């Protein structure tokens, strides 16, 4: 069953303002797993000496040594291919692809090797690797540093796709991903590394320290893959989101005072379809929000599932708020980004329908 854990459960003042941001939580998850399991190794461009372009691996090489945390050349296909071999031999590699936009050279290895080796060796060989990769826009990265390619991976079968939305989830999910015997693509929404961005790009971003989900235990814990989190309980409409868009959607719902049920999917494959079904049957309305392009985006799959399973409970057509079917623009970033205005318009429409 899905967890019910409102993201704003505690008032911000109640917390001492330290906590971890998402980068620190990811770093802590990696550190924890390096400590616990000698088979865990980390490789990628600039992850060792430099500590990662977003500092997610800072200090890990110093602490765990160069044989466990090491720099690779700029060779994404090679990085993933090497990790598949390591995994087949029994290690648990955690390769980093520096930006999700760089993952395409490695697609061949992900599709044809990592996602297939279990199937074609009838379970004799597996690829227990976790590919970490910052994804999504909101940092003016233009077309090659902003994309959300998650639906490529949900489509291919044989790979799990996980996207956290808070520091607490990031650590628990990353640990579960590393311990998972399947290849996992772990997309980190880079816009919310430092704070729960609510889509109002013209306002200052709150740091994670003021958010209850920055209260991240230093020790080991895991969040099972495939369990959604209901971040707001409501009756009027179900809002499905993941990553950055959880915070954006939640902020709109709160600002409009709509009694929406907001579900953070947390993992797309495996998907917590039970949580989705239960919620939509209750509310009779479903809105899906993602940053990726619309056509063949994961929203299309969600929409089809809701229609197949909840058709007779629906009081309005399922509605999607997504990125446009264009490359990610540099300067029109906030027009592309499915922000508060588009979410608000869609919410108002679905409640009227």
């Amino acid at each position, binding site marked *: 069953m899905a967890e019910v854990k409102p993201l704003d459960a505690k008032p911000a003042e109640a917390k001492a303002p330290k906590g971890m941001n998402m980068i620190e939580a990811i770093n802590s998850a990696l550190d924890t797993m390096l400590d616990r399991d000698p088979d865990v190794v980390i490789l990628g461009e600039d992850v060792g000496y430099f500590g990662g372009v977003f500092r997610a691996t800072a200090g890990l090489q110093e602490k765990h040594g160069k044989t466990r945390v090491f*720099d690779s050349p*700029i*060779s994404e296909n*090679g990085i993933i291919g090497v990790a598949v071999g390591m995994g087949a031999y029994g290690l648990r590699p955690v390769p980093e692809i520096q930006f999700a936009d760089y993952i395409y050279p490695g697609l061949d290895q992900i599709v044809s090797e990592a996602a297939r080796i279990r199937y074609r060796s009838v379970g004799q060989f597996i690829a227990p690797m976790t590919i970490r990769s910052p994804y999504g826009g909101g940092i*003016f990265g233009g077309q090659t540093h902003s994309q959300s390619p998650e639906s490529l991976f949900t489509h291919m079968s044989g790979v799990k796709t996980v996207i956290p939305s808070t520091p607490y989830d990031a650590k628990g999910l990353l640990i579960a991903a590393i311990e998972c015997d399947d290849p996992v693509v772990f997309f980190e929404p880079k816009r919310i590394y430092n704070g729960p961005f609510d889509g109002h790009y013209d306002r200052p971003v709150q740091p994670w320290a003021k958010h209850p989900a920055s209260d991240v235990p230093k020790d080991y814990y895991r969040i099972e893959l495939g369990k959604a989190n209901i971040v707001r309980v409501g009756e009027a409409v179900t809002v499905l989101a993941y990553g950055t868009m959880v915070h954006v959607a939640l902020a709109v719902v709160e600002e409009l005072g709509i009694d929406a049920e907001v579900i953070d999917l947390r993992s797309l494959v495996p998907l917590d379809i039970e949580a989705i079904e239960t919620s939509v049957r209750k509310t009779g309305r479903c809105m899906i929000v993602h940053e990726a392009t619309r056509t063949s985006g994961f929203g299309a799959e969600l929409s089809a599932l809701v229609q197949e399973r909840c058709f007779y409970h629906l009081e309005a057509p399922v509605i999607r708020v997504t990125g*446009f079917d264009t490359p990610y*623009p540099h*300067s029109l970033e906030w027009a*592309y980004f499915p922000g508060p205005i588009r979410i608000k318009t869609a919410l108002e429409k679905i409640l009227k329908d």
Partner: protein
Amino acid sequence: MAKSPSRPAAKPAPAKKAATKSAPPALPNRERPDQPEPFDASKDELLQFYRDMLLIRRFEEKAGQLYGLGLIGGFCHLYIGQEAVAIGLQSALDGDKDSVITGYRDHGHMLAYGIDPKLIMAELTGRQAGISKGKGGSMHMFSVEHKFYGGHGIVGAQVSLGTGLGFAHKYRKDGGVCMAYFGDGAANQGQVYESFNMAELWKLPIIFVIENNQYAMGTSVNRSSAEDQLYRRGESFRIPGLQVDGMDVLAVRGAAEEALKWVRAGKGPILLELKTYRYRGHSMSDPAKYRSRDEVQAVRDKSDPIEHVKKLLEKQGVKEEAMKDIDKEIRKIVSDAADFAENSPEPEAAELYTDVLVETY
């Protein structure tokens, strides 16, 4: 050094015969390009180099400032320190025939091609007047007019594209050559070697240029490259390589001439490794903890490409005053570009859906 076989032995020949003799030096088993000579520049040419390099430097300094002011967002990779490479190489090209393609650190290559600084700066600030209408940003800029096939944000991807450009030059028999730039980091991308193989196999007119600025973001060449003498990287594909002092514009131009001679003669691709150095961080958010301040300062003090040309000009009798006047002129061009980039409007929202497919939708 191996002894020359013709030299008489100092001692009587030993009993054991030829086996103990030093082998003659290995002869190259195929033709090689000549070692390039530094370019013999006239005073006017030197002045032009000085002016062009200074434009890149001042432009990049201004871009850094605009970034600091928040006028440029996202990614911005400055070319400061590497100016001699773009100027030395591109000054040798035939702008009507030859094509250039590069990676994400592309401002310098565009300026070296005489592309209007206003259009480049306006792209950096994401304005409608930018060379890609603001939709490309720092890493993704193009100019058909100048046969500049772009800045590309994916490390190494442009090398394969450049190989295709080389193919097209040959196919069209237009006499053009492609110059494909990439960095020491990109030199480890698999597709670079797939491209090398095809380029040599098909004898394509392409100059592969490795701008070895010593650091792939935060990882130094020898921490990421088994063969760190990158000019040798083409050897197993029979692509000859030359290593060039990328801080000396005359050496760079000389190497460009030699490379062009080779490629235009139909001998296939050639690889140039330009040893250079970037003074600034990889991007604007680089804490630069992977090298010391002293290291950077030492290069600035001893090997600065612009200071080098300045000294040559002084020797030719050009007065300090005249050079200061050029600097003033350049600063004016750059500040005009910055004003233009700051005051141009942002693209209309309708631009979101333009240039996605051939049809509008």
